């Protein structure tokens, strides 16, 4: 079963949280980030081309204009492929692990999977400094939803459902 809610991130953009409930032991959250805005794209392209045209009037070399076109295209492709994240997904599978996927605007997906045995807990933390001080028994803190940057209300929803699954898993693992 699926349901969708809309939240806002720390900068005020709109986020959509989709929750898919596959079974009592499997849950998926999909958080979609605000899309690339036409205004900023036009602004960047215009500024690059104005600068190139300015250089062209100084140097009278038409290679500058072609170079500017190349740079704009390559920059846009690079931005879509390496920087702009379209949506982030969190998949929790009871007794297997937690998987985080970031899908970029060009379709590339980068996935990380952590086994359940290595997961101590899922928490909401006020601020993370990534100090080298290691708390007792924990070797790494992994931040989630780094790109979407949702606000506290969205995080509470995710946190509640994660804790339900983790509790369910602990309950069934203790029983034979």
């Amino acid at each position: 079963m699926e349901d969708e809610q809309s939240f806002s991130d720390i900068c005020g953009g709109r986020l959509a949280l989709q929750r898919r409930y596959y079974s009592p032991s499997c849950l998926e959250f999909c958080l979609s980030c605000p899309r690339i805005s036409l205004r900023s794209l036009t602004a960047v392209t215009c500024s690059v081309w104005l600068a190139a045209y300015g250089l062209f009037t100084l140097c009278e070399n038409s290679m500058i204009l072609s170079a500017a076109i190349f740079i704009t295209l390559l920059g846009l492709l690079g931005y879509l492929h390496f920087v702009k994240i379209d949506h982030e997904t969190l998949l929790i599978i009871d007794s297997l692990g937690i998987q985080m996927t970031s899908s970029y605007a060009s379709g590339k997906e980068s996935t990380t999977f952590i086994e359940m045995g290595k997961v101590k807990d899922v928490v909401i933390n006020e601020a993370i400094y990534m100090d080298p001080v290691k708390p007792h028994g924990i070797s790494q803190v992994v931040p989630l939803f780094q790109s979407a940057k949702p606000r506290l209300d969205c995080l509470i929803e995710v946190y509640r459902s994660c804790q339900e699954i983790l509790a369910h898993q602990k309950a069934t693992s203790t029983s034979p």
Partner: protein
Amino acid sequence: MVLKAFFPTCCASADSGLLVGRWVPEQSSAVVLAVVHFPFIPIQVKELLAQVQQASRVRVAVLGTWCHRRQEPEESLGHFLEGLGTIFSHEPWLQLCRERGSKSWSCKATRWQGPASSAASGEDQVMLIFYDQRKVLLSQLHPPAALPNRQAGDATASAGGLAAVFDTVARSEVLFRSDRFDDGPVQLSHWQSEGVEASILVELAKWAAGPVCLLLAFLLSLVSAAGACRVFKLWPLSFIWSKLSTCEQLRHRLEQLTLIFSTQKAKNPTQLMRKANTLVSVLLDVALGLVLLSWLHRKDRIGQLADALIPVADHVAEELQHLLQWLMGAPAGLKMNRALDQVLGRFFLYHIHLWISYIHLMSPFIERILWHVGLSACLGLTVALSILSDIIALLTFHIYCFYVYGARLYCLKIHGLSSLWRLFRGKKWNVLRQRVDSCSYDLDQLFIGTLLFTILVFLLPTTALYYLVFTLLRLLVVTVQGLIHLLVDLINSLPLYSLGLRLCRPYRLAEPSALGIPRLGSPHCRPEHAGVKFQVSEHEAGRPLRLLMQINPLPYSRVVHTYRLPSCGCHPKHSWGSLCRKLFFGELIYPWKQRGDKQD
């Protein structure tokens, strides 16, 4: 815990039969390795499993039944399948069922709770995880065979849930050796059941590798014995060898070739990758070198180069002379001390004159030398680039000399100034205590000290200017040489085989340290991230959850970082702060430390 059934994707279209695999009780997961088809004789199946268990030390057993029918199984078949459960007793007993042509699966796991009626048997919730057997086998995410605390028949307890799956599949290779064309008593279905995978080129290469490696290893040992000969350790030669970067590069290449053609087999996948990377890097180097060689020898380019070399050297010397004339006048409007200026300027001008005579002496031989040096490009592009770097160093030797003179003079002046400044203030450097102490000087000591101090202070601008100009020139030459060395390092250390593998066979390169497997050579990998990813297949209510497990390949940046080859190690070890400090105090800068560096 939810029961996880790992099912190979190749068996999803196989006919009905028995499920054969391994049950891991700690993770409550059943790893299905193959399907045994009807008709079979239970005794023969048990014999086969005992053989496999002995050969691979994996506790292979019959886990349950697999049913692939057009419609729901009939009553009689249902009883037959349950009857099999009593012959091959295994707890829990899996019953997987799929309708032919549809995507709906059903699975049941029953546990016999004792001699009471079957109505009292419990049922567990089952999760189906599909995996590609071939990729899992080839991804080498299983622990290496030489773990110290191995127990017979079981994976080590420290291996995580998924590592146990990979380990099971990898160690059961003997089960996958029979295909359906064998006339054995038992018909199995697995990833190699259509025919065992092999390549004739690989087999031929393996067969030829033995004698070829022996021959080349012998030749290389001869070469290295000749190189380690006593003659080369005598003082002038050993000094020259240590300063030339070409010798360093040749030595590095010789080491790499010895590694590739050594007759020992690689002990683990890391060593194999390193060998493969080194081989591909050497081959690429030689190919690029041959391209350069053919380009040089076409249209007599070497002759053109030799003809252009002397005028260029002359031009550089002339420019230096102009520079010195400018310094001897009033450079940038500054007023220099006339006498010191003339002395230093004339000294350096004489040096340049000597240098020009030397170049002109060498000019008839330049073309021959260049031609022979150009031949060395067939050893590799890196060797050619190292020779270029050495030629630049030799041609700008006078700039290096000027830098050393200027730096020494400036350094002496700075030390003198600092010591006399202390005298001026009535203090002294205490060598015993390594600190500045107050001291009472005699009047004549103070007088002479102050006089010398004044002289040095007024001569400082002249010396400082000469030092500045020649340091800048020297830094320019060092930058050019540094760029060439950077390129050589890049060619030396780029792991091309791993990058090619990541492009064409990404499942071979996943992150093994995730699954609790010790990994050599890269202790700073993040250990929590497993090399797999999961995808949820279409889910219908009431049906079991189906997941697809795929290998998650390393990103390109991590491939380069993990598999990069060790380079010569000739990198500058200064930070920017210490570099500036050395420049200010006039200490000599050695841009790269070579092995056995001589102290100045």
